[in-house]
């Protein structure tokens, strides 16, 4: 019984260790993607004055409504996730 509990403990410890390693590796990889991929694109976009979100108030505008025109489409469009 004691050995069984010991082995279960070892196994769960290994699992936790594996998860910690995976979390560290994931964080490193995601950090690389963020600072090189996202950061690089963002800097280039900012230099060329491209904005990805409409963050500015434009008080002279009469309306903030934007065209949507969402209605029934061709069947094949509903298979797409975009």
């Amino acid at each position, binding site marked *: 019984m004691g050995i069984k509990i010991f082995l279960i403990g070892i196994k769960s410890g290994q699992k936790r260790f594996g998860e910690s390693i995976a979390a560290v590796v994931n964080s490193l990889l995601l950090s690389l993607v*963020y600072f090189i991929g996202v950061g690089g*694109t*963002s800097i280039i976009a900012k230099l060329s004055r491209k904005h990805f*979100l*409409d963050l500015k108030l*434009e008080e002279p505008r009469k309306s*903030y409504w*934007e065209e949507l025109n*969402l209605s029934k489409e061709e069947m094949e469009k*509903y298979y797409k996730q975009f």
Partner: protein
Amino acid sequence: MYVLGISCYYHDASAALLKDGLTVAAAEEERFTRKKHDVSFPINSINYCLKSQNIDVKDIDYIGFYEKPILKFERVLYQHLECFPKSYRTFLSKLPSWFNEKLRIVKTIRKELGYKKDVLFIQHHLAHAASAFLVSPFKEAAILTVDGVGEWTTTSYGFGKENNINLIKEIRFPHSIGLLYSTVTAYLGFSVNNSEYKVMGLAPYGDMNRKTNPYYRKLLKVVDIKNDGSYRFDMSYFKYHYTNKMPSKKLCELFDGPVSKAGAEMEKRHKDIAAALQLVTEDILTKILNHVHKETKSENIVMAGGVALNSVFNGKILSSTPFKKIWIHPNSSDGGTSLGVSSYIYNTILGKKRNYIMKDAYLGPSFSDEEIQKFLDANKIKYSIFKNKEELVNKTAKIIYDNNVVGWFHGRLEWGPRALGARSILANPCNPNAKEILNEKVKHREKFRPFAPVVCDDDALKYFDCDNPIPEPTDFMLMVYPIISKWQKKIPSVTHIDGSGRLQTIRKNQNPLYYNLIKEFGRLAGMPILINTSFNIRGEPIVCTPQDAYKCMMGTGIDYLVIGKFLIKREDNPKDMWDSEKYAND
């Protein structure tokens, strides 16, 4: 033909099943997993839907998903590109779930269900619009959807005619009434995507006068509202577009103090802020609805999205806009989109005739008397049996009249956030202490929050200053109306500080047993009104099974459980199975 709708991975995961156009089953995942607002793939809800019709996944013709994941992912990436490097932490914490589950939904559906046929995707706000229009009683109506955010859209309007929906205009992220409401909810120390209704309940304690509430004028600096109701925020007051925390330092300065801690006492300032938020929300929505009426020329309005749960505003719509009739989906938050997408597939994409009007919200699991008795006997629970329905109604009404708190478990579980007489806690509204008893012994919730009254539809106009005829969303507890002043002191437990009540009306054909119970209580008390609150404790989903109901009763101050034809008295059974106080949280 069977069509299954699924929503998951944001909040309130759910599934809904249509059989030849009729909604035959629908449920939120939280009711089965017992995790409030559970976001996970709704395998339990799907299994329930299939079991309810004795079918296999092979019998499903189409599965629909409630949004376009790649469009949403595009928005998330754009947030990070715009907000680099401030979004670093959110990027690390949120991105893995996109690759592990959100962008793999088709694989998950095939793997979890063994489903091989077509999976269709529609936009999030189209799913909301479909949930509001296609199951409404209207052949044509204006449509308004307002929530936090879908893919890009946060607010949209358009019109529906017969089987078709056309959403014409939108407001796009990051400008969002839903997210404004959530930001102030977070500022006041409540949980986001959960406690917005508490802020709505807190508002009447503050200054509801636009001229004298200082925070109303301050909040108007945050949002630019045009005459047509369109709006845009000064985003320097917010942080939600790049972090998980919503109010910025600038908003805290505007509100004269830091973000409140969870559970902190609400001061006058907090109450005024809640009032200002409600007033600004009403300003925007009233302008939008007036504009939508001008554009669509329809007399009917249907609404969905989380903001459509703002029952205080809903009760004012018909009197403050030109619309004559209104319908709101009972599960108008994201939970209802599974029903929306399945209806859209059947009625709009496949062009099949609309043959279902949602008259009640009883779409969840039910349990037969045999199943209940099996559970009671297996757990050696002491109970008595009502001889017939008449005795059940008469005895239960007397028990409530004697100021006992009753757990009421009958029929199919409700669809949506409100308990509507299938899984309800009932009490005597004439008892001045009922609110305190329910709050302290059962619900463990904030003292400022009111309880809701339920009244039969034919009595409602006598006690409430409702629109006449009474709008159908009142059946789903989605409208707040003033209680006629002479009755307010007679039913103090359901009268909010401003003299209003978030009433539920019940029609006899919806739930005859519940209807008769209220009538019988009225015969005893002279007031055919009951307190109806959801059968749960704070932080828990509404009970689903007999076991959930029994556990809830035994861990709280509920005196009796009326479940099927059985009556269980708390005192007759062993001490608490669990300590509900331990489980009560936000």
